[in-house]
């Protein structure tokens, strides 16, 4: 199995959940520990993203193949797949088929994921399985040292596990036949917003953004900006971004990365500031509420951004102050991710601030899917 970890290393596979950490390094770290556990993370808490759900619904056995392989690679006897509730039963049936066929040597269980944005963070997934609490924990140690039940724990996004299974079948060279030398392979992306056929696509990493939009039926009218990566991502001017390769290298100039693979074009008829305010209000509501700066700061940021978007731009100074006071000050990436999104909105739509102050913004179209707040 050491040879297979080396093959994954040669393939250059990185985590497809958003952080992009080299998979082989994570595998090796967990393999070094005693009695490890493997968790397949199919929480997909990001409301605009559907790629993990589509993958689990279409190819549940590929995900399970990858999870079981990962378990063999690190010496684990237990696999837990945490699946979004929409696809939980599909995975449950697939796991039952494998049990009947006595296919796997490891025990595979399927758990329904918590339906919350923060629930997908690796430490939150562990805490959800263990205690039923979908919130991140302070991490005195790495999960690869101490995770589920105190055991070394490999948490991999389900798409990463699917790639792992394919690398085991076809090899590193096959995997590297698409993508770029520095960022090999393919990735699943979710295209939402102003395209004719929103949905999930598999692209070679580094495919230019305009080609990705064309694969999604093409832009539904003129575009002003693209949201790249996810709701923790970055807005970029459409004219500058469309020709750029969708890869870490291609998006670095915008301070963006492919992240969880979201591309959301904003049509000319929508207001980027108002759309961002809607997303940030949602993110504020999705805070686990454990950390003060996130719990109190994000609603404050959302309110101030709503006022700015409504034309009361006097609060911009306060907004910037609060962004500084929220950034980096939590037990997980939630507050920093929201700050990053707002800062990119102020950069990208900054030229419109004077129009907002003059009451000239007429953008009303809603382009981004944001769940309405409701009882949980």
């Amino acid at each position, binding site marked *: 199995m050491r040879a297979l970890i080396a093959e994954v290393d040669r393939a250059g596979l990185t985590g497809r959940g958003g952080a992009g950490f080299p998979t082989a390094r994570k595998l090796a770290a967990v393999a070094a520990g005693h009695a490890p556990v493997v968790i397949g993370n199919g929480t997909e808490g990001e409301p605009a993203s559907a790629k993990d759900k589509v993958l689990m619904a279409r190819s549940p056995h590929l995900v399970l193949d990858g999870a079981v392989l990962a378990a063999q690679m690190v010496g684990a006897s237990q696999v837990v797949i945490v699946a979004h509730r929409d696809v939980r039963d599909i995975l449950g049936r697939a796991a039952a088929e494998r049990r009947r066929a006595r296919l796997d040597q490891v025990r595979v269980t399927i758990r329904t994921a918590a339906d919350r944005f923060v629930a997908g963070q690796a430490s939150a997934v562990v805490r959800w399985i263990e205690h039923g609490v979908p919130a991140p924990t302070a991490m005195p140690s790495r999960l690869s040292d101490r995770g589920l039940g105190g055991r070394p724990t490999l948490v991999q996004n389900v798409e990463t596990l699917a790639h792992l299974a394919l690398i085991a079948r076809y090899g590193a060279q096959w995997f590297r036949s698409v993508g770029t030398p520095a960022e090999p392979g393919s990735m699943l992306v979710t295209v939402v917003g102003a395209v004719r056929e929103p949905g999930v696509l598999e692209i070679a990493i580094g495919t230019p953004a305009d080609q990705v939009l064309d694969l999604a039926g093409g832009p539904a009218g003129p575009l002003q900006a693209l949201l790249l990566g996810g709701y923790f991502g970055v807005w970029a001017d459409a004219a500058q971004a469309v020709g750029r390769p969708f890869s870490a290298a291609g998006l670095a100039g915008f301070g963006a990365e492919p992240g969880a693979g979201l591309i959301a074009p904003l049509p000319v008829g929508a207001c980027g500031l108002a759309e961002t305010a809607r997303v940030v209000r949602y993110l504020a509501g999705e805070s686990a509420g454990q*950390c*003060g700066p996130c719990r109190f700061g994000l609603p404050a940021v959302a309110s101030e951004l709503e006022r700015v978007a409504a034309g009361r731009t006097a609060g911009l100074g306060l907004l910037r102050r609060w962004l500084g006071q929220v950034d980096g*000050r939590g*037990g997980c990436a939630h507050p920093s991710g929201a700050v990053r999104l707002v800062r990119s909105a102020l950069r990208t739509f900054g030229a419109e601030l004077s129009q907002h102050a003059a009451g000239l913004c007429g953008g009303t179209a809603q382009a981004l899917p944001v769940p309405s707040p409701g009882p949980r």
Partner: protein
Amino acid sequence: MRARLRVDFIACKGRGLCVEALPELITLDDWGFPIVSGRPVPPLLVPDARETVRACPLLALRLERVVR
């Protein structure tokens, strides 16, 4: 020892003892939670920083060795 202060924001409830004990290095944000700089604590203040870490009733403040 080069060390810096770090807040465990999940444990911190904003009681504010640390700010009173070590105003040289800790300020408050607009919601009453401590802001510490990520820079190493000046050697002269390390004993005070240690004392402040011990004074936190929620064990939310830590003095971490700077590894480089």
